[in-house]
C-alpha cells in the first residue's frame, strides 16, 4: 500500500529523517515509535505532503506521490490527524464534520450564488457522510453539542471522524492517545481496530507502549531520524538496539 524508499529530510545540517525505507501493508495497523525528537512527526509530514523530502521516494498504491501537495494526497485517499486536535470550537460537533467530505465535491462560487442543485445535493451528501462517521466513532449522541464543551477523548474521536469523512484508504494518526487516560486509551484502540476492520489501513505514532504492543501488526522504530528496527511487536520488544534507544546504552539500565 505504502512503500517508502530511502526517505531523507534535512533541515540545514540536521537530518530529521535519514534514509528510511519501509513498506506498510494494506488493512494492517502499522506503528511508528521512537524517543521524542526522533523524527516521527517529520516522517508523517513527508508522507502526508505537508513538506517535501530532501531525498527518497514515496509510493502509494503504485503511484509516486513524492513531493505532491498535501491536498492532492488527501484526495488520493491519505488522511491524517494531528497531535493537537484542531476543531472549530464554536460550532456543533456535527457541523465540524461536514467539511470533511468537501474534497469529494465539485461546487464552486457560482453554485453558491445560484444555490444550484449540484450544491444542494453535495451538501446533503456531506451532511450524510458527517452523520455516518459520527455514528462510526460512537458519538452520534453528542453531535448537537458545542465542540468547546466536549471531553478531550471525544475531541480525539471527532478528529478521527473528520479524517474518515474524507473517505481515506490510509489514515495517519499522530499520537492519538496523547493526553487521555488509560481506560479511554483502550476505547480508542478498539476504535482503531474497528477502522481497520472496515478496510482502512492505519499508520500511527504513539508513545503509549501497552497500546502499541497490543494493537500494532507491524512496528517501525526510529531514533535520530534513522530506522533502527522493524517487525512485529515481539521482535521489536527484544531488539537490543530498541532497548538501547529507549533506556540508554548503560548496561545496568538495559538489564
Amino acid at each position, binding site marked *: 500500500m505504502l512503500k517508502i524508499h530511502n526517505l531523507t529530510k534535512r533541515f540545514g545540517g540536521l537530518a530529521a529523517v535519514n534514509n528510511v525505507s519501509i513498506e506498510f501493508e494494506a488493512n494492517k495497523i502499522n506503528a511508528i515509535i521512537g524517543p521524542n525528537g526522533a523524527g516521527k512527526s517529520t516522517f508523517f509530514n513527508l508522507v502526508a505532503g505537508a513538506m517535501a523530502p530532501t531525498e527518497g521516494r514515496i509510493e502509494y498504491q503504485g503511484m509516486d506521490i513524492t513531493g505532491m501537495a498535501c491536498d492532492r494526497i488527501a484526495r488520493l485517499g491519505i488522511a491524517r490527524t494531528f497531535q493537537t486536535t484542531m476543531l472549530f470550537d464554536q460550532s456543533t460537533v456535527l457541523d465540524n464534520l461536514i467539511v470533511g467530505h468537501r474534497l469529494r465535491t465539485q461546487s464552486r462560487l457560482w453554485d453558491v450564488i445560484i444555490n444550484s442543485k449540484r450544491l444542494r445535493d453535495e451538501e446533503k451528501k456531506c451532511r450524510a457522510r458527517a452523520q455516518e462517521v459520527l455514528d462510526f466513532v460512537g458519538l452520534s449522541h453528542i453531535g448537537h453539542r458545542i465542540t468547546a*464543551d466536549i471531553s478531550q477523548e471525544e475531541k480525539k474521536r471527532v478528529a478521527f471522524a473528520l479524517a474518515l469523512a474524507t473517505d481515506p484508504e490510509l489514515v495517519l494518526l499522530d499520537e492519538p492517545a496523547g493526553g487521555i487516560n488509560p481506560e479511554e486509551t483502550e476505547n480508542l484502540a478498539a476504535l482503531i481496530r474497528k477502522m481497520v476492520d472496515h478496510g482502512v489501513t492505519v499508520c500511527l505514532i504513539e508513545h503509549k507502549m501497552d497500546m502499541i504492543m497490543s494493537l500494532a501488526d507491524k512496528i517501525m522504530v526510529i531514533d535520530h531520524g534513522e530506522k533502527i528496527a522493524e517487525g512485529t511487536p515481539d521482535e521489536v520488544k527484544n531488539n537490543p538496539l530498541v532497548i538501547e534507544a529507549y533506556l540508554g546504552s548503560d548496561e545496568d539500565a538495559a538489564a
Partner: protein
Amino acid sequence: MNALTKISNFLMTPAMKMVMIVAALLFPFVASNEYQIYVMALAFVWAIAVYGMNIITGLCGQLNLAHGGFFAIGAYTLAILTVDHGWAFWPAFIAAGAVGALLGFLVGVISLRLKEHYFAIFTLCVGFIIYLLLDKWEELTHGALGIINIPAPSGFGLVDFTETTPFYYLALAFMVLSIWLASRIAHSLLGRTFLAIRISDDLAASLGINLMRNKVLAFVLSTTYASVAGALYAGMVRFIGPAEAEVTHTFDMITYLLVGGIGTLMGPLLGTLAITWLTQSLQFLEEYRMIVFGPMLVVLVIFFPKGVVGSFLAWRGRRLAAAHDANTAKQAAVSKTSTDKTPATSTQEAGNHA
C-alpha cells in the same frame, strides 16, 4: 419554554429578518431629521465593506489590513471614470467592482503566500502603498486635492439619488444584497471550506482543501465588496481624497467586526450600526469621546471576545444542546418506565443560522 428561549428562538427566524427589513424601510419616516438618514445610509455603505472583511478575516481567518485601501480603490475608480473620462455612473460602478476584484486577485496571489501576521504586515504595507499612489500620482488621482463633483448614482429619471432618502434606500438595497450573498457563502460548503482554513492551514490541507485557491477566492470576494462599497461611498459623498485609503478606516472596520462578532452573519451589520450611532451620540464630547470609547472596547474584548452576535450564538448553542440532552434523558426515562423499547432520540436542529 420560558420567555428568554422564545425571544432567542425568534431572533433566528426568517420573521426576524423581515422585521429588520421593515424597520429599515420605515426608518426615514421615523428619523427626526435628514442628518440621521444620512448617517444611517453611510453606515450601510460601510457595512457592505465590513461584510467583505468578514469573508477574508472572519470566515477565512486572514487578517487583511489593506481593506480600507481597496475601499478607496473602488471610490477612486468610480470618481476617475465619471469625472475625468465622462463615464455614466452605473458602468463606472461596475468597473469599480471589477477593478477591485482584479487588483484583489493580483495582490492576493502574492500576499497570500504569507501566513498569519506576515500576511497582516504585508497587507498593511499594501494599504499604505495604495494611499501613497492616490496621494502622489497626481495625473491620475488629482493628488492631495482629491476629486470633486462626482456624480450621484443615476436614477434614470425616476429617482434623484442626490437626495438623502432615495440614496438611503439604494444603500439599503445594496447592503441587503451583500448580506444575502454573504449568507449564501457562509452557510454553504464554500463557507465551511473557508472556516476550515481559519481553524488551521494544516488541517484544511489535510482535508484536501486547496489553500491558495480558496484563500484567493475569499480575498477577491472581500476586495470586491470593499470596492463596491467605496464606489457607493463616492456616489454618496461626491468628494473623495487620499484620506479614504488611510489605515484608520481599516481599523475602524476591524472594530465593527469585533464588536458585532467576527465570522458571524449579523455581526458586521450590528457592529457597524452600534459603533456609528455610539460615535454620533458622543459627538458632543468631540475628541474626548475616545475616553468613553476606549474603555468600552476594552471591556467588550475582555468579556465578549466573540462580539455581541458571537456571544449570543454561543449562549444559544449551549442552551439548545442542554435542552436536547434533557429531552433525550426524559424520553429515555419515560421509555424505561413504560416499555423496554429503545428510547427515541429527538433530532432537533441545532445549526447556526444567524
